[in-house]
């Protein structure tokens, strides 16, 4: 069955759990997106910006030193880290900003955790002449000060969020509150495959360019499909875009890596699928970290970009159906992954993507010697250097 259904359900997940004030905006967006989805002019314009501005297609690089280190398999990296602004986020922000312009909106609001989506939103707003307000938790502002400064240089207004845990979850609440208030002229540019319908579907589609390129490149250069795909999952936009074009290729195994923080047996992690249960937050039903009373629990991860207590609803569905396997990697393992990729390949990954590298030490001994795997290297590590500095 095609996912999602007309009301945005992926199995029992997804949907549209929003205050009445936002229903019209969600409906409008769904309609507008249905139109542009089939509009060759929109596609052409988007492709133009993705190639000549953002730097697509990104290469698929064979990490021979890394493969040699594990003495088996062949590891490839899909280099989203080479994109303009340093991560896959730009794929989605350019597309949504184009769409916002079509809707006649003059202002975008965005939430950001690590600041990557904020920077990518501010960047797209520059290109398309939109006013941009970014909500960011006060705690995240502290740990990602460089991105905050970048957003300001790009002309965006960064509004610190002091409520709740002062991280991505609360920034999302505040962005939604802004959207409720200014819905007439404002588009909410969600940065991940989360939120009410049509966002999870739309952001997935916009990020699917990652998987499509990988698939085409593999078929062309290696005469077949990879055996494994691996990507990190916070909200889950890079992984969803990476996995989606391969879902029907039954032989391709997929692993989503969640942030394990200090370990899933502690209270300090962000592994919603591994350790949460279904719930409703930010307009969607999905796996959610919550206490026995249904209050949302604070997520924790060394990487601000994965620090989210829920996950895209399609991931929840893919986990239940068993199509994708979800694992959890701790802060310490992620740091080891960072160190490994930096030393062996001269590539400093974002701490989000470093989680995937951190999983290899567990996965590699179990694979066949000839297996080929592709890691979605969703972003570069520049923004995390001062965090990493505390450890090495």
């Amino acid at each position, binding site marked *: 069955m095609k996912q999602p259904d007309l*009301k945005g359900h992926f199995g029992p997940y997804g*949907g*549209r*759990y*929003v*205050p*009445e*004030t*936002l*229903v*019209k*905006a969600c409906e409008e967006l769904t309609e507008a997106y249905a139109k542009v989805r089939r509009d060759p002019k929109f596609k052409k314009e988007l492709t133009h910006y993705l190639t000549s501005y953002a730097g697509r297609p990104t290469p698929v690089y064979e990490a021979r030193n890394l493969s040699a280190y594990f003495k088996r398999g062949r590891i490839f990296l899909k280099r989203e880290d080479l994109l303009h602004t340093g991560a896959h986020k730009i794929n989605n922000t350019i597309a949504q900003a184009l769409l916002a312009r079509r809707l006649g909106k003059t202002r975008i609001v965005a939430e950001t955790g690590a600041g990557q989506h904020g920077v990518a939103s501010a960047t797209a707003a520059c290109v398309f002449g939109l006013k941009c307000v970014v909500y960011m938790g006060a705690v995240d502002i502290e740990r990602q000060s460089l991105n905050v400064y970048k957003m300001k240089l790009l002309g965006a207004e960064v509004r610190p969020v002091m*409520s*709740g845990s002062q991280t991505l*979850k*609360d920034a999302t*609440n505040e962005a*939604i*509150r802004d959207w*409720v*208030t*200014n*819905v*007439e002229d404002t588009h909410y540019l969600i940065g991940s495959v989360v939120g009410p319908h049509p966002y999870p579907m739309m952001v997935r589609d916009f990020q699917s360019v990652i998987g499509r390129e990988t698939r085409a490149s593999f078929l062309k250069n290696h005469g077949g499909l990879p055996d494994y795909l691996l990507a990190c999952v916070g909200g889950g936009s890079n992984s969803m875009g990476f996995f989606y074009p391969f879902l029907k290729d039954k032989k391709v195994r997929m692993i989503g890596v969640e942030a394990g923080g200090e370990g899933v047996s502690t209270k300090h992690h962000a592994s919603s699928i591994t350790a949460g249960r*279904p*719930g*409703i*937050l*930010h*307009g969607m*039903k999905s796996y*959610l970290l*919550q*206490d*026995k*009373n*249904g*209050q*949302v629990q604070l997520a924790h991860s060394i990487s601000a970009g994965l620090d989210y207590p829920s996950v895209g609803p399609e991931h929840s569905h893919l986990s239940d159906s068993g199509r994708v396997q979800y694992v959890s990697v701790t802060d310490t393992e992620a740091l080891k992954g960072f160190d490994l990729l930096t030393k062996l390949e001269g590539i400093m990954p974002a701490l989000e993507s470093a989680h995937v590298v951190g999983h290899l030490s567990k996965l590699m001994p179990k694979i066949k010697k000839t297996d080929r795997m592709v890691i979605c290297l969703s972003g570069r590590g520049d923004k995390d250097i001062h965090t990493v500095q505390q450890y090495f």
Partner: protein
Amino acid sequence: MKELDTLMKNRLEEKIKQARQKRRKLFCLFLTFGYPSIAATERLILSARDSGVDIIELGFPFSDPLADGPTIQYSSQESLKHNPSIRDAMRLVERLRRKGCELPIVYFGYLNPVFSYGEIKFAGDAKTAGFDGLILPDLPPEEETLLRRECKRKNLCLVNLVAPTTSDERMKMLVRESQGFVYYVSLRGVTGVRRSLPSDLASRVKKIRKMTSKPVLVGFGVSTPNQAKLVARISDGVIVGSAVIREIQKGILSAERLIKRISRAVHSEPHKPL
């Protein structure tokens, strides 16, 4: 039989019938459960009854109240420090009913705590405890149809919200499906105190009142006795929350005085049928 009678009885529907007969405007007071304490909530409900409040909207706190402004966010966070459960809220209502308080009480809350409690179980337990209705701001009628059916079966009024952005066609559906009354959200934005009321309020409310015989209550942004009076004039009743919650920060007595003043203002407006 007697047990069945208690179960099928709905204080909210009775109150609405009485108000219509007496041509009385309705004053619905929002209180955050457990703010500043459960005992304080209990006292406020009892004194509200004596001040002429018609309906209590008991807000169960949620960690991520995305339709609420800073005041209710704050009261929710404060209440959550004591880890209240839905069961605690039900116990309070049971206690009030035992004390003979027959004020209609509507549960207000975001969906997740209800979902976590178990929706079907919730509808039954809430009704047994003495709740008369339910408002879930993040649950549109398109989702959780099981809960809707169960509320109907248990005669628990599930109140729909209508917003300034709601299309005419959707408005018809929401008004038709709403049980008890219709909650009109007066403005685009979150709950909280505003200096003035939106200019299109009267015409929007008029439109809804023409569609239905159910009372239309206006909430979001109504904060002073004078605003409440103005809103009561053009609607069937007024919902006040943030203004009172803010007053609680100064003290319970101060909040009780404000409730009394708003109640007088609302009830000074005689009901004029359209």
